[in-house]
């Protein structure tokens, strides 16, 4: 059992050496990637990861925090699937910065140093009647297990998924299987309905007696979905993914204003009543480290060219 390894990195800025002490309790364990898929032209990656303890416990709507290596960041990702028998969990993420770009370089057989979870509250699933599940971008990955669970609970589930164009659309087949009917939208009209998911949603709200809407996707999408369902007075759930460190309620970095009260997305969420969330505040807080993220990502891309 080798639990301490030392390394040295050279810091160019001030020309000094930094000693890294790697301490791995119980030796070097790893969460192995058993399956890897590229989607949406390589901009979105699926990883199925060995994590038996989490796979046994996880329920739709919950998330994990993953960290690639010693110097890596802790990144929260809502699980797209779990397989308790195989002992694996699946995450799907879009490449948006250094950490996700680093994740992308990991091959099958390699792994993540740390996977922590399941965190957050699971989605409350019950039989309500007609339910609409709206997903945009990689939000569809998070929406998929919730959609499936709602259908399994006996609801009539209408799925609406969207992307900027056909090439960026993910999990269409899986969503088709998970819902009773599926509607697809693209912003540029390259596939399905030409326009936003909210347009199809409006039609559904006008013509059907919808009991619940689940909206998961980019913050502006969730904002407009909630705005629309509010007009129709239909209960709406959204799943938030703010900046987070520990994911256990300890740092308060993920705080978000819900109904005028400060909530922690990691322990009070990640799902909240869509009509109560302060989306503008959430969008601003997501920009907190955008300069640092650009710097970090730029350097990483240069080094890996």
């Amino acid at each position, binding site marked *: 059992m080798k639990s301490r390894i030392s390394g040295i990195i050279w810091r160019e800025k001030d020309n000094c050496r930094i000693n890294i002490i790697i*301490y791995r309790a*119980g030796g070097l364990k790893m969460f192995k990637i058993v399956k890897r898929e590229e989607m949406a032209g390589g901009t979105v990656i699926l990883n199925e990861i060995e994590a038996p*303890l989490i796979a046994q416990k996880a329920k739709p709507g919950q998330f994990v925090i993953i960290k690639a290596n010693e*110097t890596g960041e802790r990144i929260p990702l809502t699980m797209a699937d779990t397989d308790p028998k195989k002992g694996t969990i699946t995450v799907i993420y879009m490449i948006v910065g250094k950490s996700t770009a680093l994740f992308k370089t990991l091959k099958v057989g390699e792994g993540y*140093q740390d996977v922590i979870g*399941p965190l957050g509250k699971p989605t409350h699933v019950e039989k309500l009647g007609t339910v609409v599940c709206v997903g945009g971008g990689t939000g569809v990955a998070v929406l998929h297990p919730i959609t499936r669970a709602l259908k399994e609970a006996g609801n009539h589930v209408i799925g609406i998924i969207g992307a900027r164009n056909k090439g960026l659309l993910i999990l269409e087949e899986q969503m088709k299987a998970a819902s009773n009917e599926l509607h697809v939208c693209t912003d540029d009209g390259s596939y399905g309905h030409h326009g936003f998911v909210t347009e199809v949603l409006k039609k559904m709200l006008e013509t059907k007696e919808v009991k619940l809407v689940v909206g998961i996707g980019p913050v502006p999408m969730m904002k407009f979905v909630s705005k629309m369902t509010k007009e129709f007075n239909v209960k709406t759930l959204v799943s938030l993914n703010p900046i987070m460190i520990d994911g256990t*309620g*300890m*740092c308060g970095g993920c705080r978000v*204003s819900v109904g005028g009260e400060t909530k922690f997305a990691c322990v009070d969420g990640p799902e909240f009543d869509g009509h109560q969330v302060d989306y503008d505040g959430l969008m601003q807080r997501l920009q907190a480290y955008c300069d640092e993220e650009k710097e970090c990502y730029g350097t990483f891309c240069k080094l890996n060219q």
Partner: protein
Amino acid sequence: MAEEEVKKVKKEAIPRQPMPEQAPEVRRRNFKEVPIGYTPETAMLEAQRCLQCKKPGCVDGCPVQVDIPGFINQIKEGNFSGAARLLWQKNSLPAVCGRVCPQEVQCEGVCIVGKKGQPVAIGNLERFAADYERINGKGELPPKAPPTGKKVAVVGSGPSGLTVAGDLIAKGHEVTVLEAFHKPGGVLVYGIPEFRLPKEIVFSEVAFMEKQGVKLECNSVVGRTVTLDELFAQGYNAVYVGVGAGLPTFMNIPGENLIGVLSANEYLTRANLMKAYLFPEYDTPIVKGKNVVVLGAGNVAMDSARTAMRLGADNVKIVYRRSKQEMPARKAEIHHAGEEGIEFFLLTAPTRFLGDEKGRITGMECLKMELGEPDQSGRRRPIPVKGSEFKMDCDLVIVAVGAGANPLLTQSTPELSLNKRGYIIADPETGKTTKKGVWAGGDIVTGSATVILAMGAGRKAADSIHNYLKWGW
């Protein structure tokens, strides 16, 4: 008689040996440890100052009853390894305690030498002995009782959890420590900065426990990954809960969600655990403020302020609503902070945070305070002065006004009785909770306190767990 008097005079003639430190103007911009440590010569000289009292007050002043005159005598004799071994008998983390204990209110506060002059530098000597053994020692393991076949799970690898683990492994039980973070050490790793407690020391203390047979499971969030009942189902005979306080307290004033208002927990976790001070070599970023305000005046506030200074701030202000006397931080920390150029705005409280159109903080509105009658805590209550509003510019605010009880574990364990603030109710003498087979101690029982008090609670609980495993609940 005459001879004894001569001896005493001589002892008093040796002044308290100062701790060599990095110069303030140098250290305020680096993360290296501030005190450099005694040399063997200074340690032996300082050790001579101890009167070797027959009834030593210092031992009673120590929450874990370290044999202080005993280990100091060993140092005096030049037997540094012997000193370390004597420390270990009562304290599994001497290198840590020598650095972070508030000695001035414990052992050194009751030292007889201190009645007339400066007390014996017990903390510095403890640190010396532990460091000496870590660097030069042969890594000899403490004696261990034969295996009992009983299994104990310790939840949380902070100071109290590690104490329990160290005590119970020595008594022959199988011990597994479960840690939610990806690295062990709890507050010693995420909270206390590198310049006050180098992480290498924590990791070598933990590695030493692993050598003794303690098993460690990181990334294990008890309450989520596994519940207490599942631990019992897995065959554990007893569980110790030492998960710390871990819920940040905010001020509940307008503008608190602006970018640049952080809890001290977040700020320090980024800087310490995630090593954001080495960004971009480490991937986690941190807000590098130029005009930094830290709210609060405890150890965590001092740590935050000094970290901000090291991350390149032009000025750092500690804003505290009471006066200097009430500041809860360790004296050495307040002194060090002052030396490093941190300003103190006492009798001042913020009323709202101000931001720009991008939602970033630009300043805060404050009120001056004056002290009224003592409140429940015995400290004089601050009262706002009418018409004293003023504005303070800042681009980073770190809120270090204490912590609450994190409900993650307690929510999933309904049998654990909690007090009205959410802390676990445990017997102060044994650490027993209301759930059979479960003990608790440290900040999750007492609320935010010190490393050594958490260790003291761990010691008592370990004794009680050992008795339970032998004789029953």
